[in-house]
């Protein structure tokens, strides 16, 4: 059966063609690149997962929280003299500049998330509005932010911004792992482990888990629910800001008004894949989705297939294992 499929008639090739040799050849480089993208997805996915865990709400505007972070990175770094070509600075100066951009992006994204929660969601929560109303508000807010940016910056992407020239670090199976991939993966994993520990160990983290489990009981036990909700939004925003820096590092010309939209869907798919509401699940789902997307893209021969593959993964997960790989529920993660 399979050899028959390989010799498809020409009409069939108009639809979808598979390039298996290319995947074999580029397998390891696709793996490292996939993990890099996966780390970024995972950081954004955490924002979806936390808010979903606490409020049971898909925060559609989280993709815009992320894109605001991208613009913050862009403006900070271009004001510091970064441009399309790699900067002529010594390594410590670059690190310092990037740290500054990271802090600015995190603050900008967290602020966006904060304002969003106060302006759009809090009035609805006070009124105890039905779920549909929340979702429509979320998508409306996302749309509003996106088109505010559009009116301000126009439809075309911003100038490319190279932060540093990736240098080869080591060699795996004949494929070079460069400094950029390493920085992104390590930094993202550190942040995620930090978030996980924060939620598991700290007092606020315990509050988040309590509200996720049962908001009413948590309130009776003296947890300030409103404060926990706003904290959750802000943590999601901080992580999205960090993801924005890594995203611009990976795709220098990716800052565009609509740039958050598809990434948001991929990050949500990652969260569902790992188990929505599950902090470790977001990491696992993100990395897996990055890998699957990258393999799919090389197999099918066009970078836009990444999005299609991510979407198909989302639908398949919902069909086969809707609770995700590690199971959902923020509240039930081990104390």
């Amino acid at each position: 059966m399979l050899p028959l499929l390989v010799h498809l008639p020409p009409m069939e090739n108009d639809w979808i063609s598979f390039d298996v040799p290319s995947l074999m050849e580029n397998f390891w480089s696709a793996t490292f690149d996939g993990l890099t993208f996966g780390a970024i997805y995972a950081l954004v996915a955490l924002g979806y997962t936390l808010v979903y865990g606490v409020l049971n709400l898909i925060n559609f505007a989280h993709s815009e929280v992320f894109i605001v972070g991208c613009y913050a990175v862009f403006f900070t770094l271009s004001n510091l003299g970064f441009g399309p070509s790699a900067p002529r600075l010594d390594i410590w100066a670059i690190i310092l500049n990037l740290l500054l951009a990271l802090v600015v992006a995190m603050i900008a994204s967290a602020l966006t998330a904060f304002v969003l929660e106060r302006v759009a969601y809090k009035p609805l929560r006070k009124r105890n509005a039905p779920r549909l109303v929340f979702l429509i508000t979320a998508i409306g807010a996302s749309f509003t932010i996106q088109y505010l940016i559009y009116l301000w910056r126009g439809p075309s992407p911003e100038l490319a911004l190279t932060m540093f020239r990736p240098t080869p670090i080591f060699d795996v199976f004949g494929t070079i792992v460069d400094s950029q991939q390493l920085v992104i993966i390590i930094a993202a994993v550190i942040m995620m482990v930090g978030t996980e520990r924060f939620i598991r160990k700290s007092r606020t983290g315990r509050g988040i888990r309590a509200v996720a489990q049962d908001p009413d009981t948590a309130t009776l036990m003296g947890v300030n629910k409103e404060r926990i909700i706003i904290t959750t939004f802000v943590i999601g925003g901080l992580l999205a800001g960090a993801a924005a820096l890594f995203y611009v590092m990976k795709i220098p010309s990716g800052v565009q008004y609509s740039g958050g939209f598809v990434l948001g869907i991929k990050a949500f798919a990652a969260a569902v894949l790992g188990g929505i509401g599950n902090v470790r699940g977001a990491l696992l789902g993100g990395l897996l989705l990055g890998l699957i997307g990258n393999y799919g893209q090389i197999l099918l021969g066009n970078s836009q297939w990444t999005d299609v593959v991510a979407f198909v993964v989302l639908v398949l997960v919902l069909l086969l294992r809707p609770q995700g790989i590690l199971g959902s529920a923020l509240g039930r993660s081990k104390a």
Partner: protein
Amino acid sequence: MSMTDGPTPLPEAAAAQAAADREAVAAGPGSSVTPERRGRPGIFGAWGEKWNALPRQQQWAFLIVVVILAYMLPLINPPIITTEPGNNFALACFDMARFALIAVGLNVVVGYAGLLDLGYVAFFAVGSYCAAMLTSPDSPFLHIPYLWTIPIAMAVTMFFGVVLGVPTLRLRGDYLAIVTLGFGEIVRILATIIPAMKGQVGFQNVGHPPGTEADGTPIFSNSNGVPWYWLTLTIIIIITLLVGNLERSRVGRAWIAIREDEDAAEIMGVPTFKYKVWAFAIGAAIGGLSGALFAGQVGFVNNQKFDVTTSILFLAAVVLGGAGNKVGAIIGGALVSYIPLRFTAIAEYKYLIFGIALVLIMIFRSQGLFPARQRLLAYGRTAYQRVAKKDGASLPSNGKPPTGLRPDRDREKGIQA
């Protein structure tokens, strides 16, 4: 009482009282998307009350006048309302009708069943591509007359609706929202990257309905909006009547039960999954229908016409008009199309305006301009009028149910459903 016993039959008087209670509950604050809907009927709500109080004949007479006026609209070309000189008014009318048809379809999904479909443009796109690929000389497939593509487009989009709906509708409503949002984008990407879909090159000379003028030019030409507008308006009327019938049937009651409280509906024996898939598939089919009409009128289909942002405009149309109200959906759809065409100065800001409008409507008036009136869909007009007059007072002491209201039969049906 064991599970197998079934319900104990109530005495007739008690049954009628129970029915009256249910009506009172259905008419009460909990009846719709927002709890406070009853409290603030607003201007349009007041009109609705007056309208409901009119006798049937007057309602029909009024409706016929409105429909005739609607048909005459592009010929009259009223001076202040017209979109000229900026946009051809007949084409603008077609665009308004297209949006209205889409809103009627999306209203089935969002308004009746309470499912959030954020990728409605994808079904619209699938319908357009169906019509284009079966009629355009650019496509290698078999070619059929244009009018045949309309049912085919509806069937194909319905199929896509079921394929998307089955995995997601078993879960909570949120998943449907994100999956449809993704689907909206994916269809556009697939149209770009699959060679057979011809990406930006697209399909030229999509077919149109038969018929020529005396001088040999086709009646349904791309530049003349009037025949297309009439065709679409006729389809809107047919679809609205069909959807209205569904709304008053067991299907419609099931949808509303699902929207109000899915768990309660499931417990009462409503097969929620089945009816959710139906709502989604019917909505998708109407989207495909409007897509096929659009492809025929424009005559050219490529991947640039189906932005996912357009779906949000569709959603804004339904929400603005009042989710769950088909008249509201038609007016909302027409408005969302009309405002940017009429006021060309703000056309550039339309996405921002409707985005902000979505948030503001949800925060301050989530029932939209025309609040849904499904207070007594289950019991028909007679019962509605009786209760509306009494407004919460109990039924006459003899406990006889009003004509057309057969509580015990309805009760049993409800339980078996």
